């Protein structure tokens, strides 16, 4: 079985935000919720690099470890999903997540949090695949249709890769050897206890 992962090639990412709007478009994510975003370091200086970030679907996901209602589960493809029926919006997972992935809609006038929302790897949730109920809570389920996440598929420079971890690691390693440089598969050690050598 494939182990789905994300890999962002920081030497290719140009912070065009296609991944961000592709995600919004695919799932009709409302204003204020960002399942994916692009972070730039050394902005405006030599060494500036950008990285597209979302839930990395970690091995032994730390969010799942802290969830008081145990709403997280990992699919056979290695995708970390959660149930909004179980989620109580406590926010623990936000503090546990090394990537800042969990998002919470604001509810009511007192800033109380709604149910957590995050990247689903375009794989929906616990409801039956590609049903209106699933779409309403989690957005579309591309994986069930045999497609990869929209963000990676639409990445302008093919910096963001999604797919089986071994395959995307190989693509990245080949790139690094062709061009002679690479800053490493960012976040992989944290998320997958793994590195890609170039």
């Amino acid at each position, binding site marked *: 079985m494939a182990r789905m992962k994300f890999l962002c090639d920081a030497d290719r990412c140009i912070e065009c935000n296609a991944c961000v709007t592709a995600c919004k478009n695919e799932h009709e994510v409302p204003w204020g919720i960002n399942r994916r975003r692009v972070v730039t370091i050394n902005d405006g200086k030599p060494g500036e690099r950008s990285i597209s970030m979302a839930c990395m679907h970690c091995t032994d996901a730390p969010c799942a470890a802290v969830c008081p209602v145990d709403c997280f589960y990992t699919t056979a493809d290695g995708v970390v999903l959660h149930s909004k029926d179980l989620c109580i919006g406590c926010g623990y997972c936000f503090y546990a997540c090394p990537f800042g992935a969990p998002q919470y809609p604001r509810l009511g006038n007192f800033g109380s949090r709604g149910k957590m929302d995050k990247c689903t790897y375009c794989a929906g949730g616990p409801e039956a695949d590609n049903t209106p109920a699933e779409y309403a809570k989690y957005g579309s389920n591309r994986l069930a249709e045999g497609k990869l996440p929209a963000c990676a598929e*639409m990445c*302008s420079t093919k910096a963001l890769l999604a797919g089986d971890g071994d395959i995307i690691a190989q693509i990245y390693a080949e790139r690094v050897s062709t061009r002679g440089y690479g800053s490493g598969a960012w976040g992989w050690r944290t998320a997958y206890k793994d590195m890609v050598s170039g």
Partner: protein
Amino acid sequence: MLIKRSDAEAVRGGLAASFAALSSGALDRRAFLRRSGVAAGGLAALGTLSAGTVKKAEAGPMQPGVRVELRKNMCTHCSVGCTVLAEVQNGVWVGQEPAWESPINRGTHCAKGAAVRELVHGDRRLKYPMKLEGGQWKRISWAQAIDEIGDKMLRIRNESGPDAAFFLGSAKFSNEGAYLFRKLAAFWGTNNVDHQARICHSTTVAGVANTWGYGAQTNSYNDIRNSKTIVIMGGNPAEAHPVSLQHVLQGKEKNRANLIVIDPRFTRTAAHATEYVRLRPGTDIPLLWGILWHIFENGWEDKEFIRQRVYGMEEVRKEVAKWSPEEVERVTGVPGAQLRRVAEKFAKEKPATLIWCMGMTQHTVGTANVRAACALLLATGNVGGAGNGANIFRGHCNVQGASDFGLDTASLPAYYGLDEGAWRHWCRVWEVDYEWMRGRFGPPGADDATRKRMMELPGITTTRYIDATLLEPVKDGTRQLAEGQPNYRAMLVFGHGGNTVVRMPEAAAALEKLDLLVVADPHPTTFAVLHNRKDNTYLLPICTQFECSGSRTASNRSVQWGEQIVEPIFESKTDYEVIYRLAEKLGFANEMFKNITVRNKVPEPESVLREINRGAWATGYTGISPERLKAHMKYQRYFDLVTLRAGADAPAEVRGDYYGLPWPCWGTPEIRHPGTHILYNTHLHVKDGGGTFRARFGVERNGVSLLAEGSYSKGSEIQDGYPEFTMAVLKRLGWDKDLTAEERAVIERIGGNNVDRVSWATDLSGGIVRVALEHGCSPFGNAKARALAWNLPDPIPVHREPIYSPRPDLVAKYPTRDNFMAHRVINYGRTVQQLAVDRNIARDFPIVLTTGRLVEYEGGGEETRSNKWLAELQQDMFVEINPQDAAERGIRDGQWVLVWGPEMPKGKVCRMKALVTERVGKGVAFMPFHFAGWFMSEDQRRKYPAGTDPIVLGESANTVTTYGFDPVTSMQETKCTLCQIRAA
């Protein structure tokens, strides 16, 4: 801060919190995260609309079990031409899929392309025609709108003549729309017709066309994959053309190529460069001459290429000799050693390509900048082959096509110009009488000579509509407007933002003075709110290109056919239909649409393209039939990523073609020319897309031949230079006997008693082109490229300081040109420059202001700032300021600042956020130009018709920008002016 330009976490709240209170109501329309299970019907929020107005329900998720249709169109933002693959269910656009088959974008998009679906969901689109009545927006019907507009136009025409109206068209038109709009202006009787190319790459078109023949990118985005050295000068494609970076970066990786970025700003593109050169804004010519200085000094030029294919390089050499490394550093700030490195790579690590965008073009010396860039390419032999060339990245999705079809003050479609021969050619194509056409021009009661003069006089550009409206035609004995040109009284704006032209405070005054203002656009645009008009102002809802079909030309000259994805939403109509209805009301629809199929007042784009095919010989748009284009879209997957050519495995309909038949695609569609991927490429046969430099400027000058020497395209029967093909040339070669009887009959009919003068460009039979191709020759001849362009104001580019120079000490040595009349309006540039020096403006306004693009927005930004997925990413207008300048002024990152320029009314300031960053050098500030809706600190949101205000508003950069126009094209100066900034 809300400017998403830092590594801090995106801030929620702020605008998001107030978002629900904005006039269109809460857009969180499906609210699926809060209320699980129910997909709320959000358009109910538009409660003010009657039920009949809203044509479609909501755009929702894919409905399981409902048939999905896939439709292909192209992204309507930049010029890369990314294919958009739309999923449609029951007439509703429900999803976007990656268009893997397109060789241009291979499934990918940038933020804008990945969000285009929202454009046709259009919560904030203009929903029905409206007009201002006593200062209030009022809904009216289409019939009433066309009727009232037509009556007013006809009255103005009767009183002041056709030149009192300005037809401002759009690079957002399809080719067919652009062509019809140019035709509309011609049949109305004016050359006052323009579009965004004026303020984007008009100087490129003028500069490169005057050098080697055509005003277009010589190669393609894909071809950059072949380059060993890539120089990007005055361009930031990482934000302006993100998908092009796919080709640039992959080429760079594969070839381990040099990627050199030359820009005043350390752009997101520069972040990926192997070398970054920071120059002072407005010193491109000294920098280019500084590079050439090292090339000539070290003998790195391509001597054989220059001998065979370049005219006048010796004159360039003389000018370059003045630019020693010391003088270059004094003027540009760039050290000689760095330029030596750049020069050596560009000359030796070939193929090398030079890419430029608006940093090069939007200057008072724009055309000269472009010419200097061409000289660098020619000196190093970097034109006309794979991996080299002038890769000019154009701006809008169809700015190339709209230019090609003559949305231009100085030309009819396909760059025929405006002389009598050009008019007679197009009158033949349109099957209207030349004398009738001439009668449409000139002031009321004018004689034929005056009408002919106005018909052939280039019109007023979009950069000068302000002056055309406000300046007295004659003042103190000085002509300020050309003889016969009245002040503007009416302006028809199609698909164009009101914040795109410099000097907006004056624009507001000009707009108020007009007797009629018509804005035809999916959005109200800044033209609807900038002024305080009370009446005689109309808004017409036009649909996007996703709601109609037609062809568009990408920057690389590839033409792509877009399918209609959904029906026009709300009451919006296509450009085609509105142009037809106007022509009908104005009384010339029968003549104008004589050979065009019109159904229910909607002209059919295929039929328009066929008329273009019949007439546009000069650019080789003749082989690009709708059938061929549709086949290309259907069989996209067969085209090669690098060569763009369809291989032997492709279906017969497209086999051997280059993708999108990049023009020139010679001859009739039947002869199946494959298009021209790389211009002027002598390594290929003309029938395979090869070519030579165009013989456009005669055969000799002062005893020196202008024709190529010993250079010719592969398989050419003439193994030397030759002039453009006319009947006389064919006869001299004895090739006229190859013409068929039918071809000869057409040529004789066109030529009348001077058959010899019928040329490849005016021969409607295509016989001359066909015979030239048969003999392996370029129909337009085989000449040298001109390093020396004697017909331009500066035949060899010379440095001229910007109008508002931060270095007044250099103005005496490098002054701008003297005042002159161009495009019917006087240009007071020299006077303004001298006043700026005399008044010591550089002391009071010590910061150089330059402008540019953001990836999330495009153009005037009205459309993209109304797109919630994009608006969320850039919520505030900002100015980038260097930390040192900020520290001197006590400005912190993210705080409000006040910015003002030397031409703004006294006491007025613009209010925006500060982004303190080393991206700009000390003494330089940068502003994105997409914002509008705040005007000199005033929030104009209330002035938009209810529910049509863009989500994000902000100050326009062009409120601060100043006077200054290129002598050749009247391009405006937006990249180099002065301003002052202080903390708010």
